[in-house]
């Protein structure tokens, strides 16, 4: 009997998903829990398992299309009896969310639950495209290969280790690699949809190298184009005297690390100051919409983390309920998992404001681009000793720039200035005796 598969909800507040690849085509047989398609949401990929065994009848959504959760995406001719009724199918749809939500690692689709009636390992299904062995994934990562571009010669069209090696060798030799048919759908990416003027297609010269776009790179690009082209950014900065924090870390950092297992850094102080300042200026914890400004009561702070794959922004949820120690632990945990590529979808979503410690890479001033849907992003810059006037004397103090970009539709310079002043005041009030818990 016919069963409609719907776009599953892959995370608590995910409202839509982009079909990045169909792993089955009409006419293909699919086992229950076998991966049916790959979905991209925000910065995470996930494979969606089939709720039933059966044959794929029709695909209702094209690769590259984004549809709301619950939208019918595929029709299966299901086999079996009791479990073949549509309500069961719906019941199983969201179960996709129970499958591991994958990680921020590009291409790292979730491994679907093993079925008790899983096919023999040596009888690969009709189409193994989109399922990659550990060796293939490792090679792809090492060489920056977009696996959808590689032609598979293994059983069922599987991309083998040798296929990747051949692709890399051909790319190095400058020969055009045989393109995979599935890759075509991705060509028409979002920029045009956002009204960005089409630039002339760049040409690959003999001395140039083409780095294929990883899914994470594409997502960053899409978000940045969306943000920079739709949000009127305004920028401002203040300078804060962080000598007190520096002294506190000097005096109690080692003890803190021994007790808490994570280092005491500047960042949790900045996050705490930002969170408290957001309570004073709640307009900065908001989202612009044409219907009105959506104020968020809860405070979820995105923390920008540089990884080898690119920038990711995992979220400390309810950051306003955490102490300095709690923030330090939460930030250390997110950063470690971001670098290990083991972030979960929930870690990546719900941010209402972002803090980016750009000083870690040595910058002294930054003009950050907002995360779409947020109203403010704060950067903390490199701390350095400077002669400053204190009272009527000149003193050497450790100074740090705090930069803020805002969505000027939501707030004006007045709120931005007030927010930064609140952050500065809090940072400057910290001293060696300040409580950490």
């Amino acid at each position, binding site marked *: 009997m016919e069963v409609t598969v719907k776009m599953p909800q892959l995370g608590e507040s995910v409202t839509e998903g982009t079909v990045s690849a169909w792993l089955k085509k009409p006419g293909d047989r699919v086992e229950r829990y076998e991966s049916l398609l790959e979905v991209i949401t925000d910065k995470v990929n996930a494979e969606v398992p089939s709720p039933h065994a059966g044959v794929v009848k029709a695909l209702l959504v094209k690769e590259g299309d984004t549809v709301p959760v619950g939208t019918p995406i595929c029709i299966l001719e299901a086999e079996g009896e009791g479990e073949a009724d549509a309500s069961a199918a719906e019941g199983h749809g969201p179960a996709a969310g129970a499958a591991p939500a994958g990680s921020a690692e590009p291409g790292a689709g979730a491994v679907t639950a093993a079925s008790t009636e899983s096919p023999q390992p*040596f009888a690969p299904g009709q189409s193994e495209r989109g399922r990659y062995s550990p*060796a*293939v994934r490792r090679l792809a990562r090492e060489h920056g290969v977009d696996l959808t571009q590689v032609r598979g010669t*293994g059983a069922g069209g599987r991309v083998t280790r040798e296929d990747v090696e051949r692709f890399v060798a051909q790319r190095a030799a400058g020969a055009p690699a045989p393109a995979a048919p599935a890759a075509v759908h991705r060509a028409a990416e979002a920029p045009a949809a956002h009204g960005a003027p089409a630039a002339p297609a760049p040409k690959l010269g003999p001395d140039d190298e083409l780095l294929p776009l990883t899914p994470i790179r594409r997502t960053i690009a899409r978000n940045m184009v969306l943000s920079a082209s739709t949000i009127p950014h305004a920028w401002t900065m203040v300078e804060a005297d962080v000598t007190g924090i520096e002294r506190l870390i000097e005096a109690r950092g080692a003890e803190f690390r021994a007790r808490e297992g994570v280092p005491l850094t500047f960042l949790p102080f900045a996050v705490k100051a930002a969170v408290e300042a957001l309570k004073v200026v709640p307009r900065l914890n908001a989202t612009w919409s044409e219907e009105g400004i959506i104020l968020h009561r809860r405070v979820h702070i995105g923390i920008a983390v540089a990884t080898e794959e690119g920038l990711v922004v995992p979220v400390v949820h309810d950051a306003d309920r955490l102490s300095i120690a709690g923030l330090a632990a939460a930030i250390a945990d997110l950063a470690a998992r971001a670098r290990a590529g083991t972030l979960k979808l929930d870690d990546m979503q719900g941010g209402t404001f972002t803090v980016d410690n750009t000083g870690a890479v040595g910058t002294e001033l930054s003009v950050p681009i907002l995360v779409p849907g947020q109203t403010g992003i704060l950067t903390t810059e490199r701390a350095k000793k400077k002669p400053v006037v204190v009272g009527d004397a000149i003193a050497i103090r450790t100074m740090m720039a705090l930069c803020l970009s805002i969505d000027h539709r939501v707030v004006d310079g007045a709120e931005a200035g007030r927010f930064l002043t609140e952050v500065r005041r809090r940072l400057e009030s910290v001293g060696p005796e300040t409580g950490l818990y």
Partner: protein
Amino acid sequence: MPEKTLIEAIHDAMDEEMARDPSVVLLGEDVGLRGGVFRASAGLIEKYGEARVIDTPLAESSIAGVAIGMALNGLRPIAEMQFADFSFPAFNQIQSEAARMYYRSNGGWKVPMVVRMPYGGGPGVHGALYHSQSVEAFYAHIPGLKVVLPSFPYDAKGMLKAAIRDDDPVIFLEHKKAYRSVRQEVPDGDYTVPLGPAEVRREGRHVTIYSYGFLLHESLRAAEQLKGEGIECTVVDVRSLKPLDKKTIVEAAKLTGRVLIVHEDNVSFGAGAEIAAVIAEEALFHLDAPVRRLCGPDVPGIGFNHVYEVEFTPDAARIAAAARELARY
């Protein structure tokens, strides 16, 4: 250099060690006057006398127990189990006493003995249920034992000498089908082959085959056959299960990313499971296909009937078929 069979190499190793070291003694059923049912000890009782080449009663538990006592008192006994299948009455002595003596006495007492066991079967052996079993997994599971199974005459001589000189109890397994069917140049005189290292018998980039015993030779035949089809195999001789040469095993897996483990012993909980686990733990990101085992089925032994023998035992054709499938995966 003279060509020797595996059984001749074993004979020479015992002969040379007994000549070299008066503390080396041999005991077992029919090892003396009969010279061993496989003739491994032919001529030794004439050469070294009844005090050093001892015909025992049909009581394997006592063979093992006496050997343990000898070893604790300064001798270096070689205990022969006439067939590995008969070692089970001796299992308690080996696992409860020999294997744990060193640990139990906090390093104070050692049991330098070798237990030789002819094992295995296959088409033409006609050993049936009680004369063709593979027992290596039982012993490899026990901490405190070394378990080795050379498949080539050169290794058989060198490893038996090393086993006799080793201070730990060593289970020394000799495949019956390999006894007279495998010949190789073996140097006269003294040399040893260390107990532990695996040996890569050939190198190829498509599939890695791990094996030991007679099926190692079948694996090498399969590799030769596949070469004609353009499939190049790495073949690893896992001649020691304990210690297990994880480094060589992992490196060989990384070479191809596709691994096939072949042994005659029943598939479940066999040596192949351990090898597969090592590869899964240490070479995951080099694997390009599921790890595969081609082993004896989970039935209690190789039946006498030739059809059973053929059905039970993987051969070069079946190994080649499995490797071919892996190469295509």
